[in-house]
């Protein structure tokens, strides 16, 4: 039976990962690859060998010290949605990362169970080399899905989430290797440990209230003191799913830095890429302006701000409204989906029940309704003016077959627009009366009542139309 005692040194600050390894002990047996042969490897070569002829960079495109980087992808309690999101990314695309298809980008040798050609122990060969310290290039580890409390599962002799088998049981017997164990063994030697998606970054839905598995995040597991071999704590790219491009761009930015030509990417106090998660999703929301006008969706499907039908956007760090979900298309609020905070450490339990108005929004929506009641009519007033050609103002005539007369709706409003135009042009240097020496005046058309008869159709205007209420003086 497993227990949660600390290591030999008796220190209390050992991370859960270190404590887990204390229980499991070191490993020194490996698959007998001579014995296994090609089993599970139908091309008899692995993905790295298959791609090397096309993916390996020459001296011109390399731009830095790294020719390649291994990336080990593990799945804890995951739905594979992060993997799927990454296959959707295009800036840069997964294919380009694996093929080293951008100048300066080292090729990434990705060991990913969903994508690799080889399976079984042949797939795990590189993992074993990494544990032994025999890999031919630096490696990073990527975790998708939550870490579980495997100690709890071991109490009844089982496991929650295994990622392959190794001969690490008693007397070299094959036993399931959990995602936790791979991470615990490989994180100390990794150039970077990256958590992708909200399960790996903050525990996510598997860690929601009432869960039976003790799910937690990668940071919870590796602890506050964890540093990669390059001195970096856990990097977190959250989202459920994350935007694929957020992840691929972060990976590329780190690699450009390591290659020596990109700036050091900035991460926030929780290890998120600061340039992607520094703003709330509301600040770039396409419906944000409805908020300031105090216009809110009442029914699902309405075009206005979604706060009152359950949107948490004003207090959530995310960039989906500006970046879109895939190829700049979609984005939750852009299409009518209220934000439920899926990028946040408090997700999901601090956002439920879904589809309900966040209580805190009452204060701000009341305030913006007041402000909006002033701003909105003023904007409509200006908008109406701007929806007319200057020519239409002069003629008092809108030659559109689509609508009824759209001429100036009254003396008072006209006077207002005139005043507004005057204010607008107070410092307009074009109004100064010095001579415009280079200009040929006989071909110049001015929007000026005195000159109006010179314009096409101008002279034929009916008398009564020429005298309109808003004619500028």
């Amino acid at each position, binding site marked *: 039976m497993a227990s949660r005692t600390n290591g030999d040194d008796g220190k209390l600050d050992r991370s859960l990962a270190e404590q887990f390894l204390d229980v499991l002990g070191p490993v020194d047996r490996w698959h007998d690859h001579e014995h296994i042969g090609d089993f599970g490897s139908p091309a008899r070569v692995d993905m790295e060998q298959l791609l090397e002829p096309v993916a390996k960079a020459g001296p011109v495109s390399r731009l830095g010290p790294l020719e390649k980087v291994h990336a080990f992808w593990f*799945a804890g309690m995951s*739905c*594979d*949605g992060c993997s799927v999101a990454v296959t959707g990314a295009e800036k840069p695309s997964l294919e380009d990362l694996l093929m080293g298809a951008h100048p300066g980008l080292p090729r990434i040798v990705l060991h990913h*169970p969903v994508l690799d050609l080889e*399976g079984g122990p042949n797939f795990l060969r590189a993992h074993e080399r990494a544990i032994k310290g025999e890999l031919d290039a630096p490696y990073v580890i990527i975790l998708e899905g939550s870490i579980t409390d495997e100690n709890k599962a071991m109490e009844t002799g*089982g496991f929650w989430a295994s990622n392959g088998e190794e001969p690490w049981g008693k007397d070299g017997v094959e036993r399931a290797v959990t995602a936790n164990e791979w991470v615990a063994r490989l994180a100390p030697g990794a150039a970077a440990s990256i958590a992708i998606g909200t399960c790996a970054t903050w525990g996510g839905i598997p860690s929601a209230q009432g869960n039976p598995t003790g799910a937690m995040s990668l940071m919870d597991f590796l602890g506050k003191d964890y540093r990669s071999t390059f001195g970096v704590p856990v990097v977190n790219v959250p989202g459920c799913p994350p935007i694929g491009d957020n992840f691929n761009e972060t990976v590329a930015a780190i690699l450009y830095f390591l290659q020596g030509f990109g700036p050091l990417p900035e991460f926030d106090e929780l290890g998120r890429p600061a340039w992607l998660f520094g703003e709330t999703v509301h600040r770039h929301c396409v419906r944000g302006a409805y908020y300031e006008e105090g216009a809110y969706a009442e029914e699902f499907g309405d075009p206005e701000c979604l706060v009152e039908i359950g949107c948490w956007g004003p207090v959530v760090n995310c960039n989906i409204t500006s970046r879109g979900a895939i*190829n700049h298309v979609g984005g939750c609020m852009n299409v009518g989906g209220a934000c439920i905070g899926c990028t946040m450490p408090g997700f999901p339990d601090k956002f439920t*029940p879904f589809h309900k108005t966040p209580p805190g929004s009452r204060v701000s929506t009341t305030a913006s309704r007041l402000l909006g009641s002033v701003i909105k009519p003023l904007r409509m007033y200006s908008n109406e003016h701007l929806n007319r050609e200057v020519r239409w103002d002069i003629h008092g005539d809108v030659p559109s077959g689509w609508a009824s007369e759209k001429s100036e709706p009254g003396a008072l409003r006209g006077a207002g627009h005139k005043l507004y135009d005057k204010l607008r042009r107070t410092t307009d240097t074009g109004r100064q009366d010095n001579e415009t020496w280079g200009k040929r005046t006989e071909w110049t058309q001015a929007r000026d009542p005195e000159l109006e008869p010179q314009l096409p159709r101008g002279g034929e205007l009916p008398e009564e139309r020429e005298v309109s209420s808003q004619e500028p003086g």
Partner: protein
Amino acid sequence: MCFKTLPVEFDDSGNARLRGGIPDPYSVTTARPEVNMTEAERTAQIEQLVKRNGHIKDLNMDPVTRIAGAMALHVTADLQDGRYLQAHSQAPLFRGYEVILMGRDPRDATYISSRACGVCGGVHAHCSAYATEMALGLEPPPMGTVARNLAETAEMGYDNPLHLYLLAGPDYSEPVVKATNPELWPKAQSWRCPGEKHHGFKTMAEIMTALTPLTGELYREGLQFTRLSREMFVLLQGKYPHPQAIVPGGVTSTITLQTLNEYHARLGSIFDYAQRMMAVWDDIPEFFYEADERFKEVGARPVNMIDTGYWDHYEAYDATYENCNEWGERRWSTPGAIIDGELVTTRLTDLNIGFEEFVEHSYYDEWDGGRYGTDPLDNPLSPYHPWNKRTLPKPEPKSWKDKYTWAATPRWDRQVVEAGAYARLFITAKAQKLPESDFIEATGHSLKLRIPKGRTPETEVEWHVPDVWNAFERNRGRAYHYVFSQLVGLANLLDAYKLMERGEKKVARLTASELDTHVQRAEGRGVGFWGAGRGWLTHHTVIEQGKIVNYQICTPSTINASPRDPWDQPGPYEEAVMNTPILEKMSDPSQFTSVDMLRTIRSFDPCMPCTTHASTGRGTVVREVNTCSCGADG
């Protein structure tokens, strides 16, 4: 009379009832299906062979890659006779979504259960909304139903090429064929493709080269088209996977003319691509069958299938269990069960009451008895039915004789049935109940698909119910399902334009504040009959005093990856592997790649994330006990 094993009969008006005179009708000993070989017999046979051959080799393949999620397969292979003698399918991961949902507000179910799977990342949210709205009595407005269909046909547009080109395709690619069946390569180089006009490849060798991971044209193009379809999905649902605009009683999408036009513009380019895809997956089986007839046995199993149907007709769907047989039969893909190639029912109530789940070989504790003797229509219900089931996880050591997987064992009428996108083609073709459409016609033995012109001229293609059922036909069926789903998408897009023209823009039954009031006193049972990229999907929910008190998810890959049932019947993966001949060429056992088994498993498009009862896995344990006598180890 659709039930052969369960003691259920029907009265004159079609209502189900238990046959009289059976003291314990759902006892696992009472209704005993026929099993060809018991586990004891199979084990004895293997032991005999092992003794005769004298040499055992243990290999563990873990993970099986290029499937979604984690799965383990324990096989015993006889390389001399070219047979897999034993197979156990294992799902090595649990996450507990059902457990998390119990005790929560029903409004949480949609987005929490969505996270059961990120591969078919929109289907659970939809299915959950269907289950919840049935329990809450919320009929979506027409545009709500149509908008769901548009999202879900787009999802199929992503799902099918992802499987065919990223997961399954590499097993038919140049590097794999050259390595495992080198004798086929010269033949492939000279074999002229009948489908050249549609896909542009002169020879089979050109197709195989194009299927090569990352460098192959078809691989890269397939990946690109998954992105296009995902764009269509996120136009309506915000993101993919895990949609953000579904609610019980409708959707929350703001649907404007631009939404529909953008969807339309993308759908147009899919039809050109669909023709190419079908032609590729028509030519591959023809080539392999011609090269060696035995390829027809790879992944073979009886034609036993079930499907819940998919994509409701907005005029028919009313979110009630009472009318589910009527609206079910008006779906764009007809629900039904096929046993030994015969369509035995198209009624959703039959599918529901015949459905049971067992945990004999799974890491769960048994539950005692059931809460419900009948469904809401008084049809009899088994204590093993999802409305009666409880999820009681218990991690235990793996034992092939006892418990060895996180997947449960779903059975229909206690028979081993298979789920898949292709089941939609079978059932829809045979049932001939499709809504009227210019694009799709069911003939009773085939589906005629009329593809509108894009840059390529318009074409009519026909999917025929195949004579054989195997790995190649599953893949071919998936390619045809791709165009089938996109034509359903087109029909629904035209409906959406029509509704918009009529001003029927409402997308959800209740507002957020009405829903808030409504759930407080909610009471009832619901079931979402929906579909995934792999077919059948159900969510069963029980809501009491506004709270979820039971939640059960059954996914297609749970059905397909299921372990032995209480009667020793192997699950579909297990059975298909045991029917698969070993056709790869090897000069010594160390060259054994097991590619034929891999083609079999991948043809089901395993999607394990949600298989283990909304628990998921990744990585695959394949334990291979190799009874080998081909000399190299001697």
